[in-house]
């Protein structure tokens, strides 16, 4: 058995293990033979350990042989050879994808083990693990994708599982509304991604990253498209990354996503999913390098997101929201690093931040309990002294900043006011016009009456009364 065959075998194991997990969970649910909790936990364990072991072995082999670029071909999923149309499935193992895949396996494994106990005997246990399997497969496909189409498939799977897990506690309206918001933002990001992918496909004639990024393995590749095209495609990808990583102006969905169970919050919005946008930018970084304007845009977007995240984080009153905005700050900084061309630093930053944030989010529910125990023991509050170091001047600026942060930079409110509300009003008007026309033709009323709410307008996480007021105002 030569080295290439071993690489192919291990690479296949990495991809097949989460796919097999999804197949088992999906088929048993579909056929009405639900698995027990213990079997599901064992299956998850086996899948993650297999995938992780294979990924680590690939890393060691790459280090041992000095190979920096391994591809595993799965052939064409479908094709029309006469029209040169093909959907090529190929996986790429390089300095970017291997660490990200290992990170995904490690964190997903941790979360899987944690959830086995956290959701023990919960009615939604199976539902959680089905979505979890979709998520793991999506992450691995995205991490290892060798073509932009494969990356898109992983991207979509991650989006779907995220939205469904935000709505995990689906007997309450707030999680469901928040999930709808998350899904809406993801769909817009997906649309942007798809247009970018198609444009790249038309410009270079293929969706293969090797072809798109020219010669050289990551991060030394050089894009083969012109500066103008790079700017156009790069901006579309930036929108896609902003949607997925909750950068400004889409940051509003990040605290909403914390409505899901703690393990999913940790793995999606604290560690992996929230970094997927940054991963995309890293993967297409040769395209970014083609245009200075694009790099500046990336840096600015990262800077604004980091500043906004840092400000908002300071005024949050619940730990999960505070952690969500702290994540946003770090992701913003990572995006800035990518814009500045510091690719390795960005990759290391992603890994470090993801691990730390997962730990924090998993610790968050028990931390409160521990604080209470400690306070009971000492018979007083643990709050530190405040006010002694506060500056005396600049009170107006501080008040403004406080309000700005409390309103979460009015990001969601602005999107609702300038995009959602005009959209809804315009199509409500069309709906009424159609009803009038139908009534005119039939001389009888149509049954669809009353003001229709829009799925795009959803309530805010109910943390502040101001937010609720905004929501109610938009549910005209």
């Amino acid at each position: 058995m030569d080295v290439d065959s071993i690489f192919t075998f291990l690479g296949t194991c990495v991809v097949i293990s989460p796919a097999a997990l999804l197949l088992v969970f999906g088929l048993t649910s579909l056929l009405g033979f639900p698995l027990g909790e213990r079997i599901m936990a064992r299956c998850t364990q086996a899948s993650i350990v297999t995938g992780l072991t294979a990924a680590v072995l690939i890393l060691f082999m790459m280090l041992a042989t000095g190979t920096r670029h391994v591809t595993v071909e799965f052939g064409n999923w479908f094709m029309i050879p006469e029209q040169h149309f093909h959907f090529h499935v190929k996986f790429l193992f390089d300095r970017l994808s291997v660490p990200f895949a290992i990170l995904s396996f490690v964190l997903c494994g941790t979360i899987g083990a944690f959830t086995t106990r956290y959701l023990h005997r919960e009615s939604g246990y199976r539902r959680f693990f089905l979505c979890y399997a979709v998520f793991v497969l999506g992450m691995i496909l995205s991490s290892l994708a060798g073509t932009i189409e494969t990356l898109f498939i992983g991207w979509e799977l991650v989006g779907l599982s995220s939205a469904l897990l935000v709505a995990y506690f689906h007997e309450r309206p707030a999680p469901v509304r928040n999930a709808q918001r998350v899904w809406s933002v993801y769909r817009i990001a997906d649309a942007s991604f798809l247009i970018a992918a198609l444009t790249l496909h038309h410009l270079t004639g293929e969706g293969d990253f090797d072809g798109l990024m020219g010669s050289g393995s990551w991060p030394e590749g050089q894009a083969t498209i012109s500066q103008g095209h790079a700017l156009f495609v790069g901006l579309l990808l930036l929108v896609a990354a902003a949607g997925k990583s909750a950068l400004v102006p889409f940051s509003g969905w990040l605290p909403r996503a914390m409505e899901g169970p703690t393990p999913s919050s940790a793995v999606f919005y604290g560690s992996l999913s929230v970094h997927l946008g940054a991963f995309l930018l890293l993967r297409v970084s040769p395209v970014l390098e083609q245009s200075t304007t694009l790099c500046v845009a990336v840096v600015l977007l990262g800077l604004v997101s980091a500043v906004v995240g840092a400000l908002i984080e300071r005024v949050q009153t619940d730990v999960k929201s505070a952690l969500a905005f702290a994540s946003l700050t770090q992701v913003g900084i990572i995006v800035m690093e990518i814009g500045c061309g510091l690719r390795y630093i960005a990759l290391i930053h992603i890994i470090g931040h993801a691990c730390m944030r997962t730990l924090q989010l998993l610790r968050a529910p028990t931390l409160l309990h521990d604080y209470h125990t400690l306070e009971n023991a000492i018979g007083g509050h643990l709050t530190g002294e405040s006010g002694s170091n506060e500056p005396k001047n600049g009170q107006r600026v501080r008040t403004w900043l406080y309000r700005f942060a409390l309103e979460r930079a009015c990001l969601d409110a602005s999107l609702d006011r300038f995009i959602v509300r005009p959209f809804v009003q315009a199509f409500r008007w069309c709906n009424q016009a159609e009803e009038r026309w139908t009534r005119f033709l039939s001389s009888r009323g149509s049954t669809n009456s009353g003001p229709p709410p829009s799925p795009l307008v959803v309530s805010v996480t109910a943390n502040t009364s101001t937010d609720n007021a905004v929501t109610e105002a938009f549910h005209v």
Partner: protein
Amino acid sequence: MSELHLPWLEISILLPLIGALVVCLVQDRDVARRRCLWICGLTFVCAVGEWLDFGTLHVFEAHDHWDMIEAVFHKDIFVIDELSAPLLPLAALVYLLTVLATVRTKVDRFTFGWALFSEALLLATLACKEPWVIIGLLIVSALPPFFELVARGKCTRVYVFHMSTFAALLVAGQTLHDLSSTGSIISVTAAVLLALAALIRSGIAPLHCWMTDLFEKATFGTALLYVTPLAGAYAAMRLVLPIAPDWILRAVALVSLATAVYSACMALVQTEARRFFCYLFLSHSSLVLVGLELVTPIGLTGALCVWLSVGMSLAGFGLTLRAIEARTGTLTLKKFHGLYDHTPVLAAFFLLTGLASIGFPGTIGFVGAELVLEGAVEVFPAIGFVVVLASALNGIAIMHAYFRIFTGTRHVTSVSLCARPRERLAVLVLTLLILGGGFFPQPGVESRYHAAIALLEHREIKTTPPPDESAISSLVAWFTATKH
């Protein structure tokens, strides 16, 4: 012309036709439903048999063995070709599943006799290539919903207005076409009239109000069976595509593109489940028309793939909505219903079919959506990306409906609402088809590509005018005549 090994086409048309008569004579509704189910099942078997038989022949078109109609009329009326071969079993499957998933509480409302009659008409339409016979069948097939509206005491004006316009345009267009020569101005006018008729039947905006009206006033099953087989698209393929010049087809594609986005936007603001479904369906059926009228191999292949995927996924989606309606009454999307805990199977199927319709990876809709997008961008580089926008909006609307119907609250009831075995069977069959077609798309893509190429070749033969009969020379001749 090649022959099938058995008279599949005639049997699959005659079975529901005779079945309609038999079922009409039965007084007991339960017995009628059982007989209808048997007849639909047998028809489906015949349709599948015809498809498999045709697949073994490796030809573009074939007709029945012992073709009685040919023997009588000396003309091949019922012919199967690569376009219609998979459409016949799809249509039969939609009818079978609709009857199968009709719950006992709804048997008094749903008219099985008319359903079988319309199935016979639909299968005859799909198996026919003769323009006048297609036109006759399309006009007659508009009658069962009309009679149902009358029987339910609903206003029929909107439906009658649109369907009579549709019929008049078809007849006028085909008459003009018969009188004209290829490439002449009369021929172009005929193509425009026929295209308009196809647009009305497909519900392209602003000629779509009959569809929302039908969904509101007829039973869900009847409305579903009338629109999901995409008879309008079939009319466009058989009557418009072979004769219309490129600019008419491109215009139709542009209007369809606009309708796809408009309907997706409208689906987002609906508060009634039926109207929501109607707009969702309109958006998708418009995308089929977009692909069909692009007249490129990729676009046409994509459209034919989307045709199958939309037919399957939205029929499943509609059947799920219908099953939910049978439990709760008319569904409003203004409030949460929280039905997940009672009907997890239907919830999962609702989501799966919805995602398949928007072309989610791993489902049957993915390939078609990719191909249509590729074709649209190839022909309209600037606005082809609108297809992506329509898909994104549809995705948001589907998830919105899912959340409203299945989540958001705890539904309290003393009656079991879980899916019945028949419904489970229907769900399982469609799920397997949706996922099977999604994971193994290559045979479907190959078959649709062959069909697309063959259709384009036929079109080229039909639309190439003789040198002295081109549109320009006809125009010049007409101007000269007017001047004198």
